[in-house]
Every structure is written in structure tokens, then in C-alpha cells.
């Protein structure tokens, strides 16, 4: 016995590290990391070698060269003499523009359709389910073509433009609107708006506190609306209307001046919205149906009206179910926006991975940057949605 007792500590001291599972795991994992890094290194090395041996220029020096081509829509200053690097940002911003517009509109339409599908009104719920079944089952590219070419064919030429409201023109080249020209003193109007927003924030805190203490409710909605709309209007009038409009004018082939929404943007926006909203509607419906019926009944039994049941009981619980799949839809929408290139909307893929790639011929660099952008955008959106999800999650005590 004693010899055994003496033996065991000496044996454990002598345990070889490959007999220790923890150390062994560390060894294997480092070997794997080295192998992966080595493989990546080999690919990079091989690529550089292949490019060099075939006399293909590499590197990112092309980004500072003059681009020389025009882009139809740009949110930042851009001209033919800008650099290729700038075309990257023009394309990126155009992608972001259509993605953000699409996400907002798809969310709104999706929630409306999702709730409509649950409506007790037979007509409304059938219209909503027909909408979902039709639009989520037609490929997106075909929907984009449909909205683009069908709508284009229906619109008149610039010289026969429709003018539904004075100085707003619709034709096959787009929607032309007067552009606001800010005069002196317009800054005060903007300042008034922000003051109103801050004031509404504090009033709503005060009113919540008062409701918690006394149970009395304050007409918050009307106060907020009055402040946010009324205060800037008042300042605007006091400052003597420091805002003029530059109307678009038909000159030669087309309208000059004013603001334009090109039909490519409109078609892409509509197609992305309608397609993604069909999926969001289903997510919303499933989220609401996931809240057990007992909850609704219990809330009604407490005497809450239908609106409050929805707002205070159903929606907070449904949102927890809705957010994770909603994130995937947002990511899909961002990535689907790259179909823009089919109808000539100047997004990142069309401008940077299209024209710039072709003019410089540096496929690897350009495609690498483009992939990195979509990866970064997607990771950012999902990080934000995860944060939002944690905030909304059930707090268990």
C-alpha cells in the first residue's frame, strides 16, 4: 500500500504533456492554426508569384489614378477627373443608400403585411397572404427587371412629362423635384428643430415619472407633434422664409437643375422592398403567433383595450422572436442590392467591381475590396442587431 502511495505522486509528476488532455488540446490547436496560416500564406505567395511571372500589375497604386468615366448618381462630389479610389466611395454610398432605404421600407411594409395577415377581416388577410405567396416565390432579379422595364415603358418621354404637382415632373428619365436653396438664417430653423427634439425628450421623461407617481397621463403625442413641427415653422416665419426652391427646367434633351430620383434607384428600391417585405411579413406573423393566446386573454381580462393589449403585451414578446430572423433578412437585402448592376444602378458592384475593374484590370484587388465591404457591412448590421436583441431579451430575475 505504502509503495503505491509513494508511486502515484511521482507518476503524476512524470506525466508526459501528451498524456495531459489540456496541454494536448493546446498543442493540437496551435498546430491547426499554424497549418491554416501556412495554407493562407501559400495561397498569397502563389498568387503573387503567378501574377508576377505573367507580368500582371499588382498592388493598390491604381486607386489614386484618374478614373475618367462618369457616374449617373453620386452622393459625394464626383467628376471624371476624380480618382479610382473615389469611385469606390461613390459606389459604396450608392449601395448604402439603396440598402438603408430598402431596409426602412421593407420593415414598414413587412410589419403592415404581417399584421394584416392576422386580421379578422377576410379580405385584408387574403390580400396579405396572396402578396406574401406571390412575391417571395418570384426570383428577385426578375422582379427587378419587371419594375424597371415595365415602369419605364409606361412613362412618357421628357418632353411629355407628367406634372402631378407644380414643378414636380415624372418621365422616363426619373422624378424631377425642385431643389431647396438654403438662405441666410436657415440654420436657426434647424436649431429650432433640435431644440424641440431635446425639449420633447425631457417632457416625455417628466410625464412618465408623473404617471408612475400619480397615475395621471399627459397628452404626450400632441405635445411632441406640436413642438417638433410648430417651433421650426415659427422660427422659419420669424426669419422671413429663408428658403427658396430651384425648379427643374426642360432644356434640350432633359430637365436641368432641381433634384432627381433616377428610375434605376426607384425600381431597385421597390423591388428590394417588395421582395424582402414578403419574408418580413411571415417573420412578423410567426412572431405574433408565438405569443400564447392566454397572454392576450389575460390582458383583456385586466381590462386593457385591443390597442394596449397589442402595444404592452403582444409586441414586446413578439419582438424577441422576430429580431433574429429579421437580421438575416436585412443582411439578404444588403447583399441582394448588388443585383443593381443588371439595370444600371451605379452601386458598388456596378461602378467599382464593374467599370473600375475593367479599366484597371486588377481583378484580385478590386474583388477583394468588394468582398471585404459586403463582409464588413453584414458584420456591422448583425452586431447591431445582436446588441438590440440582447437589449430586448427577457430579463430574468
Amino acid at each position: 500500500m505504502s509503495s503505491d502511495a509513494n508511486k502515484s505522486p511521482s507518476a503524476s509528476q512524470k506525466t508526459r504533456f501528451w498524456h495531459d488532455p489540456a496541454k494536448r488540446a493546446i498543442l493540437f490547436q496551435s498546430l491547426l492554426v499554424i497549418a491554416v496560416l501556412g495554407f493562407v500564406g501559400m495561397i498569397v505567395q502563389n498568387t503573387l508569384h503567378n501574377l508576377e511571372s505573367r507580368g500582371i500589375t499588382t498592388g493598390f497604386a491604381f486607386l489614386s489614378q484618374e478614373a475618367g468615366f462618369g457616374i449617373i448618381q453620386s452622393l459625394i462630389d464626383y467628376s471624371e477627373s476624380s480618382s479610382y479610389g473615389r469611385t469606390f466611395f461613390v459606389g459604396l454610398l450608392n449601395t448604402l443608400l439603396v440598402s438603408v432605404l430598402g431596409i426602412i421600407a421593407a420593415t414598414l411594409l413587412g410589419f403592415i403585411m404581417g399584421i394584416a395577415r392576422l386580421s379578422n377581416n377576410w379580405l385584408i388577410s387574403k390580400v396579405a397572404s396572396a402578396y406574401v405567396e406571390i412575391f417571395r416565390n418570384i426570383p428577385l432579379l426578375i422582379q427587378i427587371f419587371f419594375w424597371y422595364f415595365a415602369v419605364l415603358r409606361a412613362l412618357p418621354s421628357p418632353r411629355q412629362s407628367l406634372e402631378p404637382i407644380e414643378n414636380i415632373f415624372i418621365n422616363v428619365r426619373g422624378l424631377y423635384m425642385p431643389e431647396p436653396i438654403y438662405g441666410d438664417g436657415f440654420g436657426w430653423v434647424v436649431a429650432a428643430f433640435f431644440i424641440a427634439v431635446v425639449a420633447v425628450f425631457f417632457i416625455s421623461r417628466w410625464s412618465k415619472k408623473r404617471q408612475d407617481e400619480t397615475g395621471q397621463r399627459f397628452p404626450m403625442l400632441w405635445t411632441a407633434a406640436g413642438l417638433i413641427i410648430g417651433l421650426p415653422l415659427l422660427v422659419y416665419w420669424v426669419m422671413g422664409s429663408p428658403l427658396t426652391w430651384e425648379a427643374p427646367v426642360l432644356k434640350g434633351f432633359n430637365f436641368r437643375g432641381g433634384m432627381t430620383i433616377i428610375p434605376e434607384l426607384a425600381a431597385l428600391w421597390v423591388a428590394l422592398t417588395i421582395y424582402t417585405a414578403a419574408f418580413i411579413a411571415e417573420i412578423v406573423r410567426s412572431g405574433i403567433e408565438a405569443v400564447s393566446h392566454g397572454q392576450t386573454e389575460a390582458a383583456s381580462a385586466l381590462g386593457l383595450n385591443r390597442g394596449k393589449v397589442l402595444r404592452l403585451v403582444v409586441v414586446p414578446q413578439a419582438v424577441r422572436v422576430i429580431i433574429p430572423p429579421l437580421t438575416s433578412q436585412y443582411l439578404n437585402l444588403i447583399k441582394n442590392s448588388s443585383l443593381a448592376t443588371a439595370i444600371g444602378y451605379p452601386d458598388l458592384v456596378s461602378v467599382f467591381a464593374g467599370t473600375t475593374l475593367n479599366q484597371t484590370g486588377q481583378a484580385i484587388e478590386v474583388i477583394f475590396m468588394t468582398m471585404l465591404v459586403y463582409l464588413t457591412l453584414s458584420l456591422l448590421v448583425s452586431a447591431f442587431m445582436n446588441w438590440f436583441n440582447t437589449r430586448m431579451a427577457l430579463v430574468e430575475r
Partner: protein
Amino acid sequence: MKKMGLIAATAAMTVGLSVNASAADTLAAVKERGFVQCGVTTGVPGYSNPDDKGNWKGMDVDVCRGIAAATLGDASKVKYIPLNAKERFTALQSGEIDVLSRVTTWTLTRDSSLGLNFAGVTYYDGQGFLINKNLGVKSALELDGASMCIQSGTTTELNAADYFRENKMQFEPVVFDTADQTVKGFEAGRCDVLTSDQSQLYALRIKLSNPNSAMILPEIISKEPLGPVVRQGDDAWFNVVKWSLFAMINAEELGLTSKNIDGKKNSKNPNIARFVGAEGIKGTGLGLADNWAYNIVKQVGNYGEAFDRNLGMNSPLKIERGLNALWNKGGLQYAPPIR
């Protein structure tokens, strides 16, 4: 979906596995494989376009067939790989194709920084404008403010921007992915003008539902020499492609056609005797059969025949020879002699 090809080709080059084999000796690879892999357009009438039976026809296709006739003795041994403008160079660089014969303009950037060589000029082209007749425009200088349909991934975007900048005019570029979509955008009235190489404008015009409603403006705003392209660093294959084209041009100059070349096989004219491989260096320098040039003319025809059949008066396009006439007939087509 075409983008998949581009990405796949980029990935192939990144991993670089299949690439090394094909970069080395294209001529040997072609002979072993038994057919030429030729990159063509996805469909431009007159240059490369499948007919109603699915056979590829056109000027660029005839260049590929000429290369196949010279290397393999059989003009039909070509595999056509349709490529869009964006993916064409990557496909060639990665070894997916042996030769790119796809209305491709020879420029300094492409020749010097893409690892490619241009093997001659099959067609001297220039960029022009297609416009709807009822706009009443007679000159490109009246196009200030026009919106313009452009096919992406071509030098045309740069040329158009340069021309409008030079003349202090503005335009609105609407850039489409393929020729078909560009034409659709033009037909739908999205643009006043469609710009492309003039030869392609003729081809695209017959795709319109009413070709007579559109006309081509007289201005040519750029030099667009189109020709076959090969990978840099394989001089033997570069020579084969170059001389296949030269043989077609020389044949027209010598008066050899697919119909009469059999009768001139024993000609006493030393130039013709060298051409058909009865005398001179024959095919040894190129690593080809002695009758390589004969095969091209017999099976494909000379340059003039190919032009007339695909682009000229015997085709729906009816393009004049113009700059593409032989040098001794007022054009620019000139080939070094076979001797």
C-alpha cells in the same frame, strides 16, 4: 450569373493549381487536347453569335476557326466559350481559354499591365452613337445633356466621358451589364443615345424591334483596333495566332480564296507557292504542318471572304470595308509577307 465565372476565374488564379500547366506551352496543349478554346462574346451579330442551329458564326469566330485550321488542320475543332466584357481578361489570364477573339480593343493599359499580348487587328473600329431618328439630331455635338446607354466593362465609358469633357458638354451615363439590356434600355426610352463601337452599333440596331427608327451618327470619337489576344510569355503560341490572321490577309492580297486555292496549289507564282507550303520555310518556324496557311484559306477563306460573309454586303449588317480594305485598296489591312 456571369459574375460567377469571373469569381471562379479569380479564385482559380488565386489558388493557381490548373494555371501553371496551361501557361507554359499553349500550342502543345492545344495539339494534345485536340481543340482550341476560344473566348467569344455572348452574342454580337457579325462578330460572334450562334445561328439558329447553335453554330457560332462571325468575324471573330472565323479567326478562331483559322487558328484551329492552322494548328490542327480542322477548322471545326474549336470550343467557344462565351464571355462578357468583364470576365474576358480573367478567363484568358487564368488559362480557361487559349485565345480571346471577342471585339477587344488594343490599348496601352491592356497590352502592358494585364499580362496579355494583342496579336494583330481583325477590324479597325471606332466608337460612334446610335440615336433615335425622331430626335432630329444630326451631329454628336448636339448631344449636350443627353442620357446615354452604355454597356459596362468596355473602353466606351471612358471614351464617351473624354469626348463630352473635351467638347464641354454634359451627359448622363446609364451603364448596363450586357448588350441585350443596353438595347432594351435604349428601346424603352431610358436614353437618347446608345454608344458603342460603330460595328457593334450596326449589329445592335438589327436587334431593335424597328431598326429603321434609329440611325448612326457620322462622328467617330475614338480609335478602336479590335483583335485577338493571347497570354504574354508564350511566344510560340503568340506567333501562331498572329500568323493565322496574317495568312488570311495575305491570301486576299494574293487573290487566294477558299474556292480557287485548290487550283493554285501548283502555281508558279513564288508567293503563292510559299503560301500553300510548296516552297520556302513552310510551317517549321511556327511548329505547324507545312500546309497550315492552305488549311486556313481552304476551310475558312481569306480575310475579304470572312468580312463579306459576316459583316459586309453578304451579311445583314452591310458594313462598308472602309478602313478595313487592304492597304493597296485604300484601307489599313496590311500583313507582313509570308517568305
